[in-house]
């Protein structure tokens, strides 16, 4: 009697993905409602006004920082699953694009976890010299919006695999071709973030359309659609495993000869 196929990997991937999504939602709620950074204070506020903002919201911001301390690394679980699925479809030797995405996920987490730490520190002794509070606040916001390049590595990897013809031959593939175009577009939209060091008002200031609103919403859109694609692909992978009754080894290993 053949052993039942093990669905440990697929089940784990699904659980880890939900873990990441849950953390992301809590992080977003803390960012919006506790740290009050959506929308962020204007970049041309005086130091005194910034200090007042931190004095008024000291408790809320510090609790926001506490929650971010538990949730800030939400991209690590999400991108671990993305990278494993990328490795699954990346045929032809070393899984270099999957590796790049995994590294990207690990390092971008730093830039998502650091800003709440800076804001928490600004609120920690909000009665200090206003200039120091304002400086800490600025470091926090600029860290959040100007660290685009870490996201770009991931999306270039996803784009390459989506647009590679061989990927589309793999069954239950979470990287359809149209997703490559969308990821590429989001990559380009993200590049504006680093400009935030220059202007204090307008489209490219740290609360501007191109630096804050479009990256923030596109980031959410990307995570949502990619998660949906991953869940759909995982369902297919499980069903296929159960149907063919194999025990663990990848079933749909595509022909290496193709590319």
């Amino acid at each position, binding site marked *: 009697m053949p052993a039942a196929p093990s669905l440990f990997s697929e089940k784990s991937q699904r659980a880890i993905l939900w873990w990441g999504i849950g953390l992301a939602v809590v992080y977003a709620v803390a960012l919006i409602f506790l740290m009050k950074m959506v929308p962020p204070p204007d970049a041309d506020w005086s130091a005194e006004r910034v200090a007042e903002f931190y004095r008024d919201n000291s408790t809320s911001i510090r609790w926001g920082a506490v929650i971010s301390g538990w949730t800030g690394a939400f991209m690590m679980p999400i991108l671990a699953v993305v990278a494993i699925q990328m490795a699954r479809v990346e045929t032809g030797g070393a899984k270099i694009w999957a590796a790049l995405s995994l590294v990207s996920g690990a390092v971008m987490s730093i830039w998502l976890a650091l800003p709440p730490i800076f804001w928490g520190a600004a609120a920690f002794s909000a009665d200090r010299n206003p200039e120091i509070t304002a400086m800490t606040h600025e470091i926090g916001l600029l860290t959040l919006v100007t660290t685009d390049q870490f996201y770009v590595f991931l999306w270039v990897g996803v784009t390459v695999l989506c647009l590679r013809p061989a990927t589309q031959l793999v069954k239950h593939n979470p990287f359809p071709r149209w997703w490559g175009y969308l990821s590429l577009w989001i990559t380009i939209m993200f590049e504006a973030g680093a400009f935030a060091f220059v202007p204090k008002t307008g489209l490219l200031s740290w609360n501007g359309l191109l630096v804050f609103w*479009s990256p923030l919403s596109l980031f959410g859109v990307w995570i949502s659609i990619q998660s949906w694609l991953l869940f759909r692909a995982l369902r297919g992978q499980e069903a296929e495993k159960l149907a063919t009754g194999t025990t663990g080894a990848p079933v749909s290993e595509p022909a290496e000869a193709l590319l």
Partner: protein
Amino acid sequence: MTDIDLEARPATTSPPSTRRTRRIPGEEGTWIFIFGDMCVFAVFFCVFLHARISDPVGFARDQAELNQNFGAINTVLLLVSSLFIVLTMRVIHSSNAVMRAKAPVFIAAAWLCGAGFLVIKGFEYAEKVHHGITPQTSDFFMYYFVLTGLHAFHLVLGLALLVVLFVMSRKPELSKGQFAFFEGGACFWHMVDLLWLVLFPLIFLVR
């Protein structure tokens, strides 16, 4: 929207009737990209005009410093460039080898027009900086530099894409998947033209 079959598959031969069949130019994904970009620029058009409401005098004064002739020449350059891409799409399936061989020539011509646009834009920026005008001068010039700069960035992406199309057009045959990419690339180039067709009047001409 499911995955597009990129490999060879029996091509659906069109019926000999003269009726045109409806088809998507390029790939579905290309249109996500193109309409995404067009919508973002639509937001910019509105943001620009919205900013103008609060300071119409300042906007009019700053706009008078722009050189409309540079903008008009650039519009014509992009239109010529687009025409070359239209011609490319017309000869790419020609059964006449002489006509077919014109495809890479047309793409090269389109590329040169695009590069010409960038050179003129460079002169334009240099003229502004020479007069001490930078993005920090005023709201109008911030929008002027950001919007035209973003458009120029798209144009640079388009020029890189045209190089890919140039290489592809030299192949004797394109597979169905390759042709879809080729057509999508052509549409992206038309989008660069299309955005400028609005940006030029909006920033340079509307008073």
